[in-house]
């Protein structure tokens, strides 16, 4: 059974609609990410679940119970705020114990649970410190311990890693995943960082302009984006304007300018479409086998990868190749590109802006 269900959740601030008929359900033990660009309504959604914003429409069900009339303090959710919101005048221990105190958990048990929570986040040695005396990553873990110690049915995380530097962020991603699995807590994470969402989640809900665009496993969302927005927001992608000439059971025929391309079978109707092709799915090949040829415009070294910008008659194509120590084409060189037909994704054309 779903622990959390959002049904047609809507929030309007005056004329702007921050969240628009948003529907989503989260299963027990699952780690779900709400992913979307800045201002798409992620925080607003989370605040409505937490009870700090009143929905303009729709409903929120926790274990099948409508939360409408339940005040924030009785919802029993664990929340990690973007700013951590640690109580500056309380020690780590007091911060973590606050929720237990509110639940009138007796002293012995309280101490035991605080210790266990601090142990879980590897902070037992800092229990007497004040938040000011800690690093960003440590504060983040205190906030997590404070939210987890009350054994919430649902953990809400609002961009919990966005205040950390890149290296620490990667470490904390692994840490967060470990803690979530050890605690076995159902988690809803809000983030605008697609790599974070993909690394952590069982399922991703991509949001844009307050609406749910796609809901899928990270692999599925990456591999089979339902529209151009998802394809470019999750990782890099080449978006090519094309015309779908015909579709058959065994494939499609596409035309880009005067180039004809074969595509995978598609339910789309003939007419203008958008082709999405991941840069790492493009290979270098001989002139004879090429789908298209072009000149390397720019070559960027990314450490484990090379990124090429190739000028072709399909437009500029991004090509990514792993750095395996071989000789790579130089800028100005002519290269021949090919790909497997099934790696093309045929998406609805973007409405002319």
């Amino acid at each position, binding site marked *: 059974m779903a622990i959390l269900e959002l049904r047609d959740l809507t929030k309007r601030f005056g004329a702007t609609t921050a969240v628009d008929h948003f529907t989503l359900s989260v299963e027990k033990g699952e780690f779900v990410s709400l992913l979307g660009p800045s201002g798409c309504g992620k925080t607003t959604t989370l605040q409505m679940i*937490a009870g700090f914003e009143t929905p303009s429409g729709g409903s929120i069900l926790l274990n099948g119970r409508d939360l409408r009339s339940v005040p924030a303090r009785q919802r029993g959710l664990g929340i990690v705020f973007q*700013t951590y*919101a640690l*109580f*500056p*005048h309380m020690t780590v221990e007091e911060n973590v114990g606050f929720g237990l105190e*509110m639940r009138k958990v007796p002293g012995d048990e309280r101490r035991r649970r605080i210790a266990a929570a601090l142990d879980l986040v590897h902070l037992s040695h800092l229990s007497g410190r004040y938040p000011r005396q800690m690093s960003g990553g440590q504060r983040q873990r205190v906030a997590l311990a404070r939210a987890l110690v009350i054994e919430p049915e649902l953990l809400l995380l609002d961009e919990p890693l966005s205040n950390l530097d890149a290296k620490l962020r990667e470490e904390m991603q692994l840490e967060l995943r470990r803690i979530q699995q050890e605690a076995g807590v159902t988690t809803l994470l809000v983030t605008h960082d697609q790599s974070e969402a993909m690394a952590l989640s069982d399922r991703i809900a991509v949001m844009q302009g307050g609406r749910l665009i796609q809901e899928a496993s990270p692999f599925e969302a990456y591999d089979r984006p339902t529209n151009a927005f998802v394809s470019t927001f999750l990782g890099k992608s080449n978006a090519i304007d094309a015309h779908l000439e015909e579709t058959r059971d065994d494939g499609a025929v596409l035309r880009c300018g005067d180039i004809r391309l074969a595509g995978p079978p598609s339910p789309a109707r003939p007419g203008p479409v958008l082709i999405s092709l991941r840069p790492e799915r493009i290979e270098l090949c001989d002139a004879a086998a090429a789908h298209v040829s072009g000149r390397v415009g720019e070559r960027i070294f990314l450490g484990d990868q090379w990124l090429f910008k190739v000028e072709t008659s399909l437009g500029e194509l991004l090509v990514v190749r792993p750095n395996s120590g071989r000789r790579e084409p130089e800028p100005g060189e002519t290269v021949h590109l090919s790909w497997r037909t099934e790696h093309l994704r045929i998406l609805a054309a973007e409405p002319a802006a």
Partner: protein
Amino acid sequence: MRRNGVFAKLFSLVFALFMLAPLVVVVGVSFTPEGFLEFPPSGISLRWFRAILDNPDFIDAAIVSLQLGVASATIATAICIPAALAIGGGRFPGRDALQALFLSPLTVPTVVLGIAFLRFLSTLGLNGTFWGLVFCHVVIIVPFVLRLVLASVVGLDPSIARAATSLGAPSLTVFRRITLPAIIPGVVGGWVLAFITSFDELTVTVFIVNPATTTLPVKLFSHITQTTDPLVASVSTVAILFTVALMLVVDRIYGLDRLLIGEGSH
């Protein structure tokens, strides 16, 4: 940051002398053994400090001023905390008007406030009463308290209160355990500034006291306008020392510039 050159140092020195001169003179004069104002004093004597003890008027006035300052600062702080939480807690229709109203005693000339209170209290027959004075002072000092408390409320991360709520704290507990401790520097700073402002207030008070509720500044003022003997200097010296002591304490715990500017400035 570059440091000051010779000109700047000289300028600051002269300016400091200018600021200190009248205070130094008052303190100096108070030690005179003579019966008139002389500076520098021809000798050192505590004659005029002993004279304070023979003038219960001044002592009574000082007691009234202390009581008045404590009562009005406390009431002003008590009503400003909820008002600051409302005004600093987010927009609502009428918020700007409310804030403008609470800060307006700063813009109305004090002499206008003085006669307005006089007219109001004498119509009610409350002129010269202690509690009449208290509530007039509350109106005058509310802007000072409100500005400081508001500054600390606005600086507060709203998710801290939300975090406490999400952990199950009822709203009164959130206020007592989370919000109040977080804004306490502003509250204490506001109270002290309000107390000092009330303690020093003359222009409004001079209209609404009677002999039984005369405050120290009013007593000093009427004494100065009638005669000038070293007694006013010795009373003033005691007042200066009291203020300086209070000031040093405040500067330690809150920062004098923060208190007076009303926002973080270190």
